[in-house]
């Protein structure tokens, strides 16, 4: 570097110019606070700063998101370079931004960092440059550059640089505020969309049926939307078709796959009354389009309230528990992998079924969000905790019993790490 640069110091200045400077600073502050259009406000501010410092031209550069490019967002006077982009290390302005210090170059011809490409394009001859970084703490936002002082000896001095630095800091704060406001608006928009998605998801769950209907379910999403679901509907012959599923992962992608799987179940389940074949068909459909290794564990069945007969198929889901009339718990382990991984994993693409009499007992199907959920004391619920809670609350109605289970799992801020879903099928004969 051969050019003359000066570190700003507290230069003596006339009271008149300090008053003018403070007035400009206050005006700019008011303008920034009142404006909804940050670009127009920055352009106005640059015009006034250029005039205040008696420069022939000025330019305001902002760093892009990658920090690799400086873009001229506004220009004034003889510099018509709005829209111009530079590598963030190019020229005096690049040096100013990279070093985060003000630059005063009185003769650009003597500064090897001076980038003559802009002059070549605009036809303007730059003689001297005053440049101050726009930054807030360590966050670099850009820089304001003023060229060619008109009056006096035509040279910028340390007092000019001080003035420019205070003005550029004010502009930097305004840009940062505007960006934060924009991010907040975007966040609000995403939140509203998530809430709408959650509303649609809740509508996919069946409405609770009054007793003595044999099936009740509860779903508490850990986030706004859920990857868990359950459904049940009564067939014309009085049997009830039901399922409970859990999509791998969380968030919107899990929620969308949940919506697809739940819809497939409801649609196909109305005509196909074999749980094993139903799961085979849903698996084939999901496998055609699923991405990113996502899969769905699902237990699905058909229950006949008139006879207590149960048919159940389990695709990789946490073993449902059959709580028998005499108080024992039988775990019904999956005999086949989850849906969405591959076809051909089970013979003839028919998932194995288990058939048994509920015989006055209850079948509970739940997601690992229940068994891995945290209790008040910080321990996890586990299958044993679930069994104990179910046994202790045997006298309650099915719906109250399920509420008692989810009531055990802590659901405060951040405590619920997975969606909580549980379904009970009771033989109420």
């Amino acid at each position, binding site marked *: 570097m051969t050019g003359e640069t000066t570190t700003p110091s507290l230069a003596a200045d006339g009271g008149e110019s300090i008053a003018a400077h403070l007035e400009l600073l206050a005006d700019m502050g008011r303008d920034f606070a009142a404006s909804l259009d940050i670009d127009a406000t920055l352009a106005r501010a640059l015009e006034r700063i250029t005039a205040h410092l008696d420069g022939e031209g000025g330019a305001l550069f902002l760093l892009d998101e990658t920090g690799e490019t400086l873009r001229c967002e506004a220009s004034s006077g003889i510099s018509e370079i709005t829209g111009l982009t530079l590598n963030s290390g190019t020229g005096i302005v690049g040096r100013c931004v990279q070093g985060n210090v003000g630059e005063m170059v009185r003769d650009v011809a003597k500064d090897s960092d001076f980038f003559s490409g802009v002059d070549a394009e605009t036809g303007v001859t730059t003689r001297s440059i005053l440049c101050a970084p726009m930054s807030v703490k360590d966050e670099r936002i850009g820089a304001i550059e003023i060229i060619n002082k008109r009056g006096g000896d035509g040279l910028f001095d340390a007092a000019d640089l001080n003035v420019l630095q205070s003005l550029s800091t004010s502009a930097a704060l305004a840009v940062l505020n505007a960006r934060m406001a924009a991010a907040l608006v975007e966040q609000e928009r995403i939140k509203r969309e998530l809430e709408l998605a959650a509303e649609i998801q809740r509508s996919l769950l069946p409405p609770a049926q009054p007793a003595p209907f044999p099936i009740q379910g509860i779903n508490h999403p850990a986030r706004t939307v859920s990857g868990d679901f359950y459904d049940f509907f009564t067939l014309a012959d009085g049997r009830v078709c039901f399922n409970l599923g859990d999509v*791998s*992962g969380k968030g919107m992608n899990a929620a969308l796959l949940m919506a697809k799987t739940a819809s497939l179940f409801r649609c196909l389940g109305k005509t196909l009354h074999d749980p094993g074949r139903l799961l085979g068909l849903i698996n084939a459909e999901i496998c055609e389009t699923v991405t990113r*290794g*996502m899969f769905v564990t699902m237990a699905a069945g058909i229950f006949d309230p008139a006879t207590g007969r149960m048919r159940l198929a389990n695709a990789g889901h946490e*073993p449902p528990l059959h709580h028998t009339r005499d108080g024992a718990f039988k775990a019904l382990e999956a005999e086949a992998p*989850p849906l969405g991984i591959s076809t051909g994993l089970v013979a003839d693409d028919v998932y194995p079924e288990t058939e048994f009499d509920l015989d006055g007992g209850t079948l509970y199907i739940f997601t690992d969000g229940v068994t891995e959920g945290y209790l008040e004391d910080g321990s996890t619920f586990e299958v044993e905790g679930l069994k104990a809670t179910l046994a202790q609350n045997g006298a309650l109605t099915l719906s109250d019993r399920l509420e008692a289970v989810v009531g055990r799992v802590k659901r405060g801020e951040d405590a619920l790490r997975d969606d909580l879903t549980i379904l009970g099928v009771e033989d109420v004969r």
Partner: protein
Amino acid sequence: MEHNIREEASAVVVAFEGDVDLESSRRAREVLLECVGRKRAVLVDLSQVTYIDSSGVAALVESFQSARKGGTTFALVAVSDATLKVLQLARLDKVFTIFASVDDGLAEAG
């Protein structure tokens, strides 16, 4: 979660350590897909994995699907008890090829 990749004569061995959960599974996915992209047999050493959730399993599933499409071997080796329990409960032991040790996997891949 930590990981380590080493090239052996018959396979790429990628070893994970710690929890493969919602926070780390994105990284695990990138690592696994990069290994599968090498067009060689891939052995995933899960001996030091203390916890795996469904997003971690999905990363394994996607890599398995990708290897199958590319016609290369993809197997899990020396699976820790905690991980094996998760895989067995979901009957994913029917999906993945699993070897008891890295050496068994290397012998088979060779």
